[in-house]
């Protein structure tokens, strides 16, 4: 309702500026006045959502594909299928503190000798974009919005940095990114990660791997034009344990003594059952 009013208001005070936008012939039946195309002077904004609001990690969980889709409101794009705007989608997992350890050769044996604790590191980080992000915007803009692996916010926990020099700390940072990439937890969607359908609709498919850490995920969608963010939108998806998986995990962490006792009982019972079944003659 609010948008409808805004549209009407905009049409009233609009100055027809971008002729090319207006020139596009409208097909189909004549729209009612309320559905008139929004005025070009209105700032384009982006809205997005995720195909699933909540994901469940059950015993059969092998990862899940989510679709981040959205629309550019008040799109001024001259032609269909994109090219005018750039859209970047960043899906980030719950941040956790992480210890990074470094091995060195101590008398012929490789031992963890130093470590840095980062107070919060996104457990998962996926980027999808219409073009490679370096082509979309410059480093300062990407840094400001934490877009791209090297711009992920990662600060060492208080007192954990010690006497490390900047370049040494940077080595730890890049190690986190490298290791997370190796675990498929930091991913860049291949070319055409975000595709436009029509002048304003876009979608992006992001495949969450089976080892994605449990916790809420945030999908940040940025609308770029000429290397600047002109609009952004945040959507959330929950990722939680469910079913037997949830039961076992909660039991193990909350009632760990009962869990341990049950584990012992299960072991004894299954051992006895198995030997009764096979009637084996033990050694």
């Amino acid at each position, binding site marked *: 309702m609010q948008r409808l009013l805004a549209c009407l208001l905009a049409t009233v005070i609009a100055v027809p500026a971008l002729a090319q936008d207006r020139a596009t012939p409208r097909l189909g039946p004549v729209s009612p006045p309320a559905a008139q195309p929004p005025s070009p002077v209105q700032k384009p904004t982006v809205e997005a959502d995720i195909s699933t609001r909540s994901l469940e*990690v059950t*015993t*059969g*969980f*092998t990862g899940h594909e989510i679709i981040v889709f959205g629309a550019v409101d008040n799109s001024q794009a001259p032609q269909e299928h994109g090219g005018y705007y750039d859209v970047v989608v960043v899906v980030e997992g719950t941040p*956790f*503190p*992480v*210890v*990074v*350890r*470094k*091995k*060195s050769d101590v008398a012929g*044996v*490789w*031992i*963890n000798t130093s470590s840095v*604790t980062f107070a919060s590191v996104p457990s998962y980080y996926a980027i999808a974009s219409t073009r490679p992000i370096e082509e979309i915007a410059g480093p300062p803009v990407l840094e400001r919005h934490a877009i791209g692996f090297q711009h992920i916010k990662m600060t060492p926990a208080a007192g954990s940095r010690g006497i490390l020099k900047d370049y040494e700390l940077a*080595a*730890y940072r890049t*190690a*986190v990114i*490298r*290791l*997370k990439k*190796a675990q498929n937890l930091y991913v860049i969607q291949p070319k055409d990660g975000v595709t436009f359908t029509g002048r304003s609709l876009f979608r992006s498919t992001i495949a969450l791997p*089976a*080892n994605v*850490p*449990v916790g809420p995920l945030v999908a940040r969608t940025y609308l770029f034009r000429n290397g600047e963010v002109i609009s952004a939108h945040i959507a959330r998806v929950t990722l939680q*344990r469910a079913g*037997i*998986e949830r039961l*076992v*995990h909660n039991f*193990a*962490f909350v009632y*760990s*003594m009962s*869990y*341990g*006792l*049950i*584990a*012992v009982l*299960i*072991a*004894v019972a*299954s*051992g*006895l059952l*198995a*030997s*009764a079944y*096979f009637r*084996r*003659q*033990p*050694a």
Partner: protein
Amino acid sequence: MNIYLPIAEMSVNVALFLGLGSAVGFLSGLFGVGGGFLLTPLLIFMGVPSAVAVGTGSMQILASSVSGAIAQYRRNNVDVKMGAVLVIGGVIGSVIGVSLMKILRQAGQFDLFVSLSYVTFLGAVGALMMIESLGTLRRSKSGQPSSVRKTGQHSWVHGLPFKMRFHRSKLYISAVPPAMIGAFVGFMAAIMGVGGGFVMVPAMIYLLRVPTSVVIGTSLFQIVFVMAVTTLLQAMQNKAVDVVLALVLILGGVIGAQFGAAAGGRLKGEQLRFMLAALVLLVCLRIGWDLMAKPAEIYSIGPVLGGGF
């Protein structure tokens, strides 16, 4: 088919882990050993966090030893008094081991400690077994009888206090050495995810001079109780027991052990011991190599584990 392990927090192929369990079960059936020393390193190699591999290993060993222990008890092959002393020691060792494991995990040195323990024990036991089996093989070839237990021999063990009479073993010795052996084995069990039979059996034979007829039964007796306590402690202190993973491994292990035991019946004892020694040394070399070789990645990441020391 994939299954998501609730504690290890990873999705694994059930068939693969069933296969792993049955392969280890086959070897343990073949050689008559627990197989923990093979299973735990293999699990770590497959990407299971080392703490979970060790903790879940305890549960698997409990399951695979319980029926054997009961059968031995029924056949009167268990020296219950000796077993009780071993269990008391074992529980103390296990408590120390599980607590040390927690500290080492927080310090980021647990993996190193596990590897070093494996290299040390497997190296020592494997080398001794190899020397012994080569000796027996040579003797059996030249037609000499293999060595028999020398009764009545005394060693430093017999000079210690707290002497107890172990009727079933026909021994009158101090309770200190069996308690120490039990504690040592319990400690190893907690840290390495093994039953410890490969240390306990030779220690009982050579140090305590327990008759061979009761050695296996008594050590199984100790393993069952100590593994039960270790499983419980690992679940409580380290949250390291994955019941789902354990069940998969137990199932595979039971199936594999059937075939292993059948295959073992066709081989000579000396040959089996030689093969086992070779296997133990191979595992030792593999883990040793990983410690010494320059790793492809010198950095590692892990969660920040809460709790103080």
